[in-house]
């Protein structure tokens, strides 16, 4: 075995992985918990205007639209932000009150509208359960059919490794 391959193998042993985990956790914690400071008023106005539909346009949000109606809502949001209204929900509720609930682009999580949140979760759960059942069935079938076992795979894997296979198809 050449020196470089030996070094490569040593690096890939458990201390290398432990160091990797430490680096990821360290940088991850620093980055995720870093204090961003107060949200810039402009960014907050953008964030809120993304959640409100232009009341007279075809499918645009207030953030995207240049319609005077959107300009008016953006001005109302700007006003509320500049007055120091602390709660985003309060600002959105005031807009919904003025223009009707249909201007809010994030559906409610109550009543019939809750379906738009619940159904994707249900679909995801069904997908995972289907995969689990499929693999269980295949494992049972494989046991009955007497196909290659772990030991066989290890022999093949060792031979592929010896030949330097990348794992591509």
């Amino acid at each position, binding site marked *: 075995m050449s020196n470089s391959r030996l070094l490569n193998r040593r690096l890939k042993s458990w201390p290398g992985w432990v160091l990797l985990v430490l680096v990821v956790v360290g940088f991850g914690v620093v980055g995720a918990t870093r204090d961003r400071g107060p949200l810039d008023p402009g960014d907050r106005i953008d964030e809120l205007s993304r959640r409100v539909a232009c009341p007279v346009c075809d499918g645009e949000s207030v953030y995207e639209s240049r319609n005077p109606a959107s300009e008016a809502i953006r001005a109302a949001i700007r006003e509320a932000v500049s007055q120091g209204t602390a709660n985003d929900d309060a600002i959105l509720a005031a807009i919904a009150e003025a223009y009707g609930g249909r201007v809010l682009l994030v559906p409610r999580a109550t009543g019939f509208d809750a379906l738009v949140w619940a159904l*994707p979760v249900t679909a995801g759960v069904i997908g995972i359960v289907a995969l689990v059942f499929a693999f269980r069935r295949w494992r049972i079938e494989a046991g009955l059919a007497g196909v290659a076992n772990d030991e066989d795979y290890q022999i093949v894997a060792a031979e592929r490794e010896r030949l330097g296979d990348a794992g591509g198809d």
Partner: protein
Amino acid sequence: MPALSVNAALGNAGLLVMLVASTVGAFATAMAIAGGNRRAIRQGPTFAWVILAGAVLAVVMMQRALFTRDFSIDFIQQVGSTTTPWLYNLAAMWSALEGSILLWVIVLAGFTAAVARRFRDRSDDELVGWALVVMYVVCAFFALVSFGPASPFARGEAVPLDFVGPGPNPLLQNHILVMFHPPILYLGYVGFTVPFAFAIAALITGRVGEGWLLETRRWALFSWGFLTIGILLGAWWSYEVLGWSGVWAWDPVENASLLPWLTGTAYIHSVLVQQRRGMLRVWNLSLLVATFSLTILGTFITRSGIVNSVHAFAAGEVDGYLIGFFALVVLVSLGLIGWRGDRLRSPGQIDSPVSREGAFLANNVVFAVFAFIVLLGTVFPLLVEVIQDRQTVVGAPYFDRLSMPIGLVLLFLMAVAPVLPWRKASTELLRDRLFWPAWCGAAALAIAVLTGADGWAPLVAFALGGFAAGAAGRQIALATRRQGWRGLVGRANGGMFVHLGVILIAVALAASNSYTHSATLVLEQGEEVSWAGHTFELVEVVDELDERVDVARANVLVDRTKIYGPAVTTYLLQGMVVPTPSVRTGFAKDVYLTIDGNSPPPAGSTEVTLRVFVKPLILWMWVGGAIMAIGTVLSAVPSARHRRPTDATSAPLAEVGRVG
């Protein structure tokens, strides 16, 4: 009412020829196959050339009508104008419902002729024959729609002699991309008709093995590639033209293009499992049927006027036709899959979730759930209106929230799947193969944090992006070391380039969605304003007027280096005002300037209000798109890899009988 012009007469004649040729072609070829008449079957492809001739004649006449401003035709009265520049006049064909169907018609006729030519040596093969029958049926449907309810050659009301015409929607004569985005998107949409046609042919003939997959692999790949490029060009157009600095608004029509892309992407992955292991036959057929039927559903959504969208055309009479055809496609396909259920049962098992095929299955579940979310969010307002008789909207924040975790899972799968072997992976093998890709992920995370990134979601995206890029780079490096330049081509290696493109796009989206800053700046002439580390100075406001448009441009000096000119264009005929942003593009970030408000600043004004956006890494989205396109081409080039005795082989397949 004016007399029927030559353009309209010949255009209608072309569509009629296409309608008749495709109907007769479908019947004649089907009857010939059913009757076992080999000589007649060999005549089948001839109809494709007649269909193409009819479609070309119709399009040539439409273009002639546009260029001669033939206002006797209703469609030209809607989109033609004596003032429209020739380039946009050419593109005016697909700027409204009837012309866009005509674009569909010509692309479909082109694909049909290409299939006839590609398989000309096997024209008496029943699989090819039935595939042509399916293509002819689809051609007949679109020819019928174009000849009937969406006729682009319908006679218009009489107009005055000095009628100028409105021209296309100003947004469709504002940027060169109008020439490329719709046709390329249509090449993707319509291209999926070919693998769909072969899938249906395989079901009819009972040859549901892997033969039809191999025949259509490149057709599916190129269609997917065109759809990808078309969608990305749409994003670029949105960014360059619409003035809100975004690339994707989750608009219903954008979603309609994303849906077949999602199922198509799932297909081009899961088809590998069928080719390699002979499994997932029903699933792959279902994905193709879903992809094709979603293109029809998307067309229905765009053209029926049932959704509110900036893209939607005026409501036409085609909605009944399209939804009827959609239902027909779904019912016939499901019926055929049910009928061939016994032959579709594939032998073999997927041994372990930790295997290449296990990763493909997980990928498919994620893409299927993603497609379901996009479809649900798009049609949910309709459901609420029908069931509860009230109006609601489901907008970008909903899709953003749900697509973010899905995107992260897909990045993880892109990181792990390329290193997994077929059948089963041992812990030792994973530890060995994932080590350096995982360190690439750690390095990406470290660089992101050290350059000031924060927030857990974008950081996870950057780390997984680095991880996935490491896995793709590993595959390419090992393949090129083994095979030289041939290690760059082929399904697996070309696919890794596509992955690299996707990763760049994902990282660019994560960065731009998380770290875009914007401000409204009031600039006065000669006074410098500083914001977000940049300086802005209004040099002058100029007005450029011609017979078509009045452009008010604010020349702004950015960072004391270069003048950028965001503008507001007033289209005089339509009275419509369109903002045109000006962008300073950079490797690290773009500075995006657009004039605020909906009215142009007066010429000579000494003050202007700008909306300024600073968007990080957005350039890499377009670079990623280009790499995806290159990777798609590389994937289509056969690799010269020779199998070794130790390579895993497919499970033996039970021989299935052939019909005829």
